[in-house]
């Protein structure tokens, strides 16, 4: 722990901290470009020079390259140092195109700040400026190489941190070029981070091109709603339009970066088809009329059929506040027909996952620091992309990453892959839960044995499971396996990938309540007459769409509260528009049980660009803002229950009511969030059911998530459409040969939802005997939902 003096202030820092970071601890910001907390130091930009007066090194040195040592006396602002930095800035600016007015980085540009701070105003050098041709880097990132200052942050982010291979540094001398070898979209699903790390305007957000300046944006700390990891983001909105999302720093979860699904999935809030008015039937009504209609109907049904005739459903998209008030309202109505997830498998899976001991639950920070991660039935890039990035950081430190999966899982790092069928995953986990007895299924003894001994020998082992593929039984088996592979000093942690941003909250609140199958039974039998869906889409999320459609059609009243035009909305008798995450406040609990609050970024309303038709704002004045009717779901629930719509009161009530949410009312959106106080109690009563053996010419159909196209909200974002694949089916080469099918050709896939014509892809590293299709909304594959047992299917030439 060296102690040093920086600008007459004494600071003690851990061994290995560099002087730049030591100064940061004192609140002294040394100007720099190339140093980044997550990427480390390279000493390329020469801007962070400071003067060492005493100690092991003396004179002007780069503070990012000098580790702090005892006895150092550092001056960060001596006249010599300031003159040095001013000169560095002047050099960096000799080739700059001076195009700040048309550059999207303007206002948030480090080079601008440093140039002004360094006092450089007039270019004294009269030689010619170097120029470059730009590249088309795909739909997300705009490229303007003339603005580059060669700090290497982009390459270090893209290649080292994110594991991308198609973007790098080319050329030599002072002709360095940061780009691809030829034009084309960047392949890494983390490419968007280049926008955040580039200190100038070389790499900017193409979807945000020329839309706003940072000083005009409404920004607030928020949480990404597109998967269960709950990454910290800063969305920006202007003129009632959500225009971009940036990564925010939370060292417990995402660190400094986010994935492209989170960054560019913001478009759902501005979707032109977003319903913004209460609807009765398909007629637009006022809030009062709609609420009165709802309450009259509920009263009527309650009197005629009893309170049990009212079913309530929320989803993993709903905030904790909404889920809690739904539960409260169900209790007030007297109904026990309350469910927190329309997909029974995912519901039970989340309930099991939420019962894991908290000291055995891994955060993304734990993933980054693990030395062995075994992924069983988890596909990070599709189900929780930032997990792949966290695993890469572990692998860079020497961790061993093992993937056991029937799918051709791809990760941006070096890993071991074992193609294992879905049934065998469960058997492997049950074998791992008794490592001494080595009861592994045949053909898996070697793998199972080696995994068990590796997990027992590792210092910080980690089991990662996707609840979609493992199911509730597999999730429980993984918890038991983690327990069995734990040593007192080296506990084996687990991480489960859940369906949505607040699956965990729903799982905590659901207690022993029914799952949606039993609600459907009630509807089919006519016991349940009304269903209230709070940000839930049972038609799209329940695996058997035919059944859910028939059951919903029998209802007397289907009331939907949502911010997106879902399939269920088309069937709704009553509709109430709710706000998007960015338009309200609330709390989400991520897959490790971390409560994270988010703040309101902007007020809901039809974007000016849409309401003005692309022209100037209307030339009349009115108090009414078009499309501003959506209200937060918890606010509507509060109004229905006749309580005050105060978030703090509500949070204190949740906290008082349920000790597991202790600390909720003190939660700050800018903080790191707070783990729940205790897991839920749950154990499955079912016996593991393994599906029967299929006929020899039958394939198993497995539906999986994909990076783009599966998740409801991000799929509504038009900037992701170009990257969304078209409908395809994946087969093992053996099966393709067996059925005489060729890659890239159209094939006919016979499934329980009908015959689908799809393009064939062949993947060598998947399990034979299986056809894998992605869940792609808006295509023929839409009715197929992940998280179910593999279905029987057949395949032939189209």
């Amino acid at each position: 722990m060296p102690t040093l003096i920086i600008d007459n202030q004494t600071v003690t820092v851990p061994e290995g901290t560099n002087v730049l970071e030591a100064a940061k601890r004192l609140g002294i910001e040394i100007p720099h470009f190339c140093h980044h907390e997550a990427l480390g130091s390279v000493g390329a930009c020469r801007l962070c020079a400071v003067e060492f007066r005493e100690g092991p090194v003396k004179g002007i040195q780069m503070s990012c390259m000098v580790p702090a040592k005892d006895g150092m006396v550092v001056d960060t602002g001596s006249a010599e140092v300031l003159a040095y930095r001013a000169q560095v800035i002047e050099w960096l600016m000799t080739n700059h195109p001076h195009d700040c007015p048309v550059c999207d980085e303007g206002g948030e540009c480090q080079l601008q700040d440093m140039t002004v701070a360094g006092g450089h105003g007039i270019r004294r050098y009269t030689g010619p400026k170097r120029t470059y041709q730009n590249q088309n880097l795909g739909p997300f990132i705009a490229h303007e190489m003339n603005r580059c200052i060669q700090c290497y942050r982009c390459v270090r982010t893209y290649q080292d941190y994110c594991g991308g291979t198609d973007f790098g540094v080319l050329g030599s001398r002072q002709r360095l070029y940061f780009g691809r070898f030829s034009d084309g979209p960047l392949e890494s699903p983390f490419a968007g981070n280049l926008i955040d790390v580039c200190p100038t305007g070389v790499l900017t957000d193409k979807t945000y091109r020329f839309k706003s300046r940072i000083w005009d944006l409404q920004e607030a700390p928020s949480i990404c709603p597109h998967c269960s990891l709950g990454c910290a983001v800063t969305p920006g909105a202007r003129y009632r339009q959500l225009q971009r999302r940036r990564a925010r720093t939370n060292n417990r979860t995402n660190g400094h970066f986010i994935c492209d699904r989170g960054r560019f999935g913001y478009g759902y809030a501005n979707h032109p088809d977003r319903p913004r008015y209460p609807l009765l039937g398909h007629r637009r009504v006022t809030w009062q009329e709609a609420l009165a209609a709802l309450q009259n109907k509920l009263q009527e049904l309650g009197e005629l059929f009893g309170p049990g005739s009212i079913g309530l459903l929320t989803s993993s998209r709903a905030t904790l506040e909404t889920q809690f008030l739904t539960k409260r309202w169900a209790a007030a109505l007297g109904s026990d027909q309350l469910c927190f997830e329309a997909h029974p498998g995912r519901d039970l899976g989340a309930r099991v996952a939420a019962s894991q001991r908290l000291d055995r639950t891994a955060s993304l920070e734990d993933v980054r620091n693990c030395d062995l991660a075994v992924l069983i039935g988890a596909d990070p890039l599709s189900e929780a992309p930032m997990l792949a990035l966290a695993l890469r950081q572990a692998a860079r430190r020497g961790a061993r990453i093992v993937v056991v999966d029937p799918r051709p899982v791809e990760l941006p790092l070096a890993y071991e892959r074992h193609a294992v069928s879905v049934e065998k995953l469960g058997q492997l986990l049950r074998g791992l839960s008794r490592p001494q007895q080595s009861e592994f299924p045949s053909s898996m003894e070697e793998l199972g044995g080696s995994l068990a001994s590796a997990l027992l020998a590792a210092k910080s082992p980690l089991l990662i499971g996707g609840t979609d593929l493992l199911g509730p039984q597999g999730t429980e088996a993984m918890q038991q396996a983690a327990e069995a592979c734990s040593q007192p000093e080296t506990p084996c942690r687990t991480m489960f990938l859940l369906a949505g941003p607040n699956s965990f909250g729903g799982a905590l609140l659901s207690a022993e309540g029914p799952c949606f199958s039993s609600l459907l039974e009630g509807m089919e039998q006519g016991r349940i007459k009304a269903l209230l869906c709070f940000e839930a889409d049972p038609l799209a999320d329940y695996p058997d769409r035919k059944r859910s459609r028939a059951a919903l059609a029998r209802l007397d009243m289907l009331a939907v509260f949502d911010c997106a035009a879902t399939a269920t909305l088309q069937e709704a008798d009553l509709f109430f528009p709710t706000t998007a995450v960015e338009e309200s406040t609330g709390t989400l609990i991520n897959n490790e049980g971390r409560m994270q609050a988010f703040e309101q970024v902007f007020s809901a309303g039809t974007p000016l660009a849409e309401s003005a038709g692309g022209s100037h704002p209307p030339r009349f004045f009115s108090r009414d803002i078009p499309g501003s009717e959506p209200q937060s779901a918890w606010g509507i629930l509060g109004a229905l229950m006749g309580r005050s719509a105060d978030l703090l009161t509500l949070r204190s009530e949740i906290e008082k009511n349920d000790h597991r949410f202790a600390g909720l009312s003190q939660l700050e959106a800018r903080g790191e969030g707070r783990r729940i106080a205790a897991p839920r109690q749950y154990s499955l009563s079912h016996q593991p059911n393994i599906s029967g053996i299929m006929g020899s010419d039958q394939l198993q159909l497995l539906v999986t998530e994909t990076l783009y196209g599966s998740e409801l909200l991000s799929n509504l974002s038009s900037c992701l459409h170009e990257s969304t694949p078209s409908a395809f089916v994946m087969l093992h080469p053996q099966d393709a040969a067996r059925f005489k099918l060729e890659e890239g050709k159209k094939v006919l896939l016979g499934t329980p939802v009908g015959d689908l014509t799809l393009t064939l892809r062949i993947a060598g590293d998947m399990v034979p005997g299986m056809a894998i299709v992605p869940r792609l909304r808006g295509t023929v594959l839409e009715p197929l939902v992940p998280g179910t047992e593999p279905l029987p299917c057949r395949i032939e030439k189209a």
Partner: protein
Amino acid sequence: MSLWRDIRGTILPFWVTLRYLFRRPVTVCYPERKQTPAPRYRGRLVLTRDPDGEERCVACHLCSAACPVDCISMQAAEREDGRRHAAWFRINFSRCIFCGLCTEACPTLALQMTSEYELASRELLQVIYEKDELLIDGCGKNDGYNFYRLAGIGVAAPRGSNPGETPPVDFRSNLP
């Protein structure tokens, strides 16, 4: 002495008034007669064009950021040739205090002040000017300046062909 001072103080103003009685008046019969303000008078704002006849304004938002009364609003957009321009641009002259900070902030010399001062109107909407009312057909005071010929990003001329630029580098070559 104070008595002498008081007498002087009483007579002098009368003398000044008397003197001015025999001078020509400085006021003019507005609106029949109008005065020409000085060239740097801070009157109504206009958007000028560059010597090539293109809009100078790139909708960089600096004028609206500098405006102390928030009377300027705009939206930037991209033309097909990559040129950034204002999709719409609005100045609310009922708010404008004619301080000139926007013209000082304007990096492309698009926004300039004219000597027009007759803006009063009973109709509020008449003093809210849109882009087509603000845009004039000339260069205004600085007739030689063209931002895109000095900022090297290849919009007005192909990349590397503006004055003081080298042709684009071939990054695939490692030769010196």
